[in-house]
């Protein structure tokens, strides 16, 4: 299963697959960089709805996109994040740079 990319104006929505690991992160990095090179993207939204697994490769992916978009406040958002992913985002300190929205039924942060 691959990620699905949805661009609307300057917003790029990336629906992540079930597992966000090293090969998947590499793939998403390449595709999103290709899009950024062609269209002006102001905000990237990572949708974790389908994602049950992630490791530090996903952290590298998020921080890399944050840098690619100029490290502007709010340029990267993670939505529908479950408790396991949320733990990773906080442990790594990434929550200081990107906006996180927990999946419904788990309460927002």
């Amino acid at each position: 299963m691959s990620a699905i990319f949805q661009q609307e104006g300057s917003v790029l929505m990336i629906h992540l697959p079930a597992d966000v690991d090293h090969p998947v992160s590499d793939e998403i990095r390449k595709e999103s960089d290709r899009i950024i090179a062609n269209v002006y993207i102001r905000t990237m939204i990572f949708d974790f709805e389908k994602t049950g697994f992630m490791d530090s490769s996903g952290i590298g992916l998020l921080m890399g996109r944050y840098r690619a978009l100029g490290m502007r406040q709010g340029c990267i958002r993670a939505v529908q994040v479950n408790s396991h992913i949320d733990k990773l985002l906080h442990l790594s300190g990434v929550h200081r740079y990107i906006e996180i929205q927990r999946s419904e039924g788990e309460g927002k942060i």
Partner: protein
Amino acid sequence: MENTNEMTLIFDSRPVNEGLARITAASFCTQLNPTLEEVADLKTAVSEAVTNCIIHGYEGEIHKIRMDLRRKGQELFVDITDQGVGIADVKKAMEPLYTTKPEKERSGMGFTFMEAFMDEVTVDSTVGVGTSVHMKKTIRR
């Protein structure tokens, strides 16, 4: 004695096998009756160690990675070993955010995650010989 068990998985250092190692570890772990959270923790730790063998240990070349899993009661022991380049300064390597491959967008959080999700993590490494990560986790039920 149903409360001891062990297995070894030996596989090519291909990225596609990161998922194989995770699923095999999760499957082995089910006999300890883990919570979903404990399985997720184990999978992340295994994924970090195996990814490191592929990216750092073998630097993309295809060689063998070995994963040993052992159960003793509610204790799970995981050893992940490569015969790659090795680590000169293990203490430094284990620091949060430290990475020698920032150009590959590594976050330097691999060892930090292993330590957060497992009860014990120790690393044996010799430059030019390889690296072995030993982890332990007690599954509470």
